């Protein structure tokens, strides 16, 4: 959910929108925001499933330190979505395990 009105920060400024593809679904994102913010705004919480127990994981630290939020971006696995900005047309996939087909 976007925070549109804010008592301190004011209204959400108009920014250029970009389209990204998340697990085959088109999502509208704001230029310059990280992938994690774009997919959180779309209500998506699960970024990946762990290798051994296949447990879901989401954002934990939000600033690039913990690697919990990694996903497959443009075919590249283990991309930290919290510090990787969206760009027009990128594909983002939920990552399973190490994200290279095998586990």
């Amino acid at each position: 959910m976007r925070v549109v009105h804010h008592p301190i920060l004011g209204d959400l400024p108009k920014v250029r929108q970009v389209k990204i593809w998340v697990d085959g679904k088109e999502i509208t994102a704001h230029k310059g925001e990280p992938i994690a913010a774009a997919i959180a705004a779309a209500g998506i919480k699960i970024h990946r499933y762990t290798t051994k127990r296949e447990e879901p994981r989401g954002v934990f630290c939000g600033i690039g330190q913990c690697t919990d939020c990694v996903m497959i971006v443009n075919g590249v696995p283990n991309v930290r979505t919290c510090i990787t900005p969206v760009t027009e047309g990128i594909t983002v996939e939920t990552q399973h395990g190490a994200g290279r087909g095998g586990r």
Partner: protein
Amino acid sequence: MREVDLAVVGAGPAGLTAAIEGAKRGCRTVVLDMNPRPGGQLIKQIHRFFGSREHRAGTRGIEIADSLFHEAASAGVEVMVEAEVYAIHDSTLEVVAQTNEDSLVLLSEEATTSRSRPLSIAARRIILATGGAENALNFAGWTLPGVMGAGAAQTMINLWRVLPGKKILMVGAGNVGLIISYQLIQAGGEMVAVIEATSRIGGYGVHAAKISRAGVPILTSHTIISASGESRVERAVIAKVDASWRIVSGSEQELEVDTICIAVGLHPNARLASLAECELCYSPSLGGWVPIHNSRMETTISGIYIAGDLSGVEEASTALEEGRLAGICAAASLGKERAGDYDDIKAIEGRLLGLRSGPFCQHRQDAKQELIGIGEAQCPKQ
């Protein structure tokens, strides 16, 4: 290889002030930061800071960040974002970073490409200002999506303007937990409760009073037992703890929440310092393992300085001061001194002493004193 006088890692309050002081003294200075925007955690601090006029108290962190960008730009500091430093070769103080094609920016628009390239910089002095990292907390369900650092939630709402959940439980009633609870309410979230395992609120009473009158219950002597839900947080179970930290049986209660924020302290983000073979020591008051440094902020590795939360988890106001101190001292070690440096250093030290006094902060002054004492013995002599 690119050559600079001063390479600063981290563009938060400490890194930026260090770079500013270095550049003002004629050092060719570059700041590297892995995030898409400079400013560190300042750019999500929408509350007014405490402190004195010298620390721009009463000013919001976001405004302090803006004025630092301005100051850095006019001092000629170059800031690279999306530039992650992953190695420091100590023999020549070579900084190796992974950067994006267009990540060279001078405090302007964010980088736009994602083509990575490695970059090596030969620096005569390095200042590490890599900040702190949030501590995790282990309980049943702690890895479920929806359990996140309080700082992560703050980044989401104030920087990216996305509310991570609607009904939120905050674990930890230190200043971070209290302030971020307030900001989550401001962003439109509902704070179901703030819980705190110790018997008293750790943060400032004024922050607690703020969220209390907003209707948020602050439950001391309470801990989280579990988070559960179908692939995401749907509820939490909390319970009372007694004086020996045992769960009081029968006191469990279930809360319907979709987000659980963890605010149980931070630790110095010392990975890069450790990689550079700076010696660390353990200081509970400063948040854990912290690089040993002397009064000039130099570590046990000659030429590598530190500042800010990396040198002990404190506040942005102390980071701003320590950064300036590190910048002045690093420049001085290159012979780039300025008339008045001595007075500036004394003034900074005086302000740091003020920030580290009082019942909330004196323990940090003591810990810092101890750390510097070790540093004076172990760090290279000037």
